[in-house]
């Protein structure tokens, strides 16, 4: 049984739950979803992986840094202490990983521009390539952020033309698109497979 912590600060949580359930069925890896709203939720859940969904990063920063939640500072510390913890951040989640604003480095060795691909009228769907999954992938970009610079070119895991749309550092991946809205559950499966390895190392 893999426990996936789903960050519930705001945003498209339900589609991540659906994608995780499908990935669980496909891979045969049993999943328990732990909803994270506060730092207490994080400390009491013993999670093997984390998903930070898409939504509005400005809202998530406020709700997650408020004294009533405290989830963001706790989660950032937890991720830095456990670099092998599998993490999937999509869109706004990728922004929080790239620009954590805790006075330390980017968690994914990359900087990002919020709404770098424009407003909703510029939102787009297209086929991209994922080096991590070694196949083409349906890219769904909604008011998407844009990776602007990366520390290590080996960290690129998804591209669209010359644009970098996915990066990885340790076991954390950040995507500027929305795999949870597509029918391909490859990234969620990757997360579950890494979580198995991670939980076995801990055990």
């Amino acid at each position: 049984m893999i426990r996936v912590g789903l960050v519930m600060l705001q945003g498209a949580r339900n589609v991540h739950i659906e994608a995780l359930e499908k990935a669980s069925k496909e891979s045969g890896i049993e999943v328990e979803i732990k909803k994270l709203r506060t730092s207490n939720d994080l400390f009491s859940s013993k999670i093997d992986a984390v998903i930070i969904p898409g939504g509005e990063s400005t809202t998530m920063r406020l709700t997650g840094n408020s004294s009533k939640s405290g989830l963001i500072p706790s989660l950032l510390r937890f991720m830095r202490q456990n670099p092998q913890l599998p993490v999937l951040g999509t869109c706004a989640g990728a922004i929080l990983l790239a620009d954590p604003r805790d006075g330390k480095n980017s968690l994914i060795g990359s900087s990002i521009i919020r709404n770098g691909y424009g407003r909703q009228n510029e939102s787009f769907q297209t086929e991209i390539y994922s080096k991590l999954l070694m196949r083409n992938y349906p890219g769904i970009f909604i008011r998407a952020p844009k990776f602007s610079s990366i520390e290590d070119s080996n960290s690129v895991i998804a591209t669209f033309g010359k644009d970098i749309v996915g990066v990885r550092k340790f076991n954390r991946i950040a995507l500027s698109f929305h795999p949870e809205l597509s029918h391909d559950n490859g990234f969620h499966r990757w997360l579950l497979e890494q979580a198995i390895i991670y939980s076995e190392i801990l055990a």
Partner: protein
Amino acid sequence: MVTNVDMSQLLHGTELLKRGFAKMQEGGVIMDVVNAEQAQLAEDSGAVAVMALERVPSDIRADGGVARMSHPNMIMEIIDTTSIPVMAKSRIGHEGEARILESLGVDMIDESEVLTPADPFFHIPKKDYNVPFVCGCTNLGEAVRRIAEGAAMIRTKGEAGTGNVVSAIQHSRLVSNEINALCNSTADEANAAVDKIMEGFQKLKDVSEFNINPSITPFGTMEDLRNDVVDVFNEVMKQKRLPVVTFSAGGIATPADAALLMKHGMDGVFVGSGIFKSNNPKMTADAIVLATHHYQDAKIVAEASEMMGEPMPGLEIGNLETRYQDRGY
């Protein structure tokens, strides 16, 4: 904005992108704002989007007369100020206004009963647009009609500008109870429900001298439209909820109101007059965001309520001259 890529490979304005945009709003508060300063306050308080309009609903109600789309300069000023999505309202059935709002680059159009309806028979054919739409509903049938027309998001109407949450609860209960009841229906019962839903598209008949029903609608032939309604109806039955993100609106004035609607299973809330007609808008905005996020924790909702000063003054629905919730088809 996109660089280094072949633009011809890109698909824009698909149903997935429109409904997907709405999903990003889940768990959030969307606030009515009338200028750039209020938009900034909304963003700083944690709003997921702002609704740009010239007057909040309680002022529209007090002023009377015809309420139209806001001035483009005012909408552009808000777009230029805030980094969160900007929505704006068009009149029901007013394609002229909707096309202007789309060209201004708003992120979502609210085809809203708070403005004076422009078309007495039909709403806007929303599938023809790149920009996603949110529409109001008072019951399941109205929601299914709007989604079949292409709405990417639904908000229960409530009664805007009253600070009275009773209509919001009524509409939320109606939608969920109607879904529950119909989920166990036979094929014949489902067919009868679809027939009933289709009646909402037949308003022209009531005023026609010849009692005619149009075979062509802004959404295609009546037959195509029925097929779309059946598709949405089946989606509802399968998912046991509306197949698009569903917010509550119309009368939410306090953190407790927001928490109540979230407990009813709403995906988020619109707050119109409730924030900027309260005596301390910043505190009210902060408190409603806090309560919406922690709606399951009564202690935190209580603390949010403590943050509040005087909420907006409220109105009894029965005494209203105009019920906005009755607008639309």
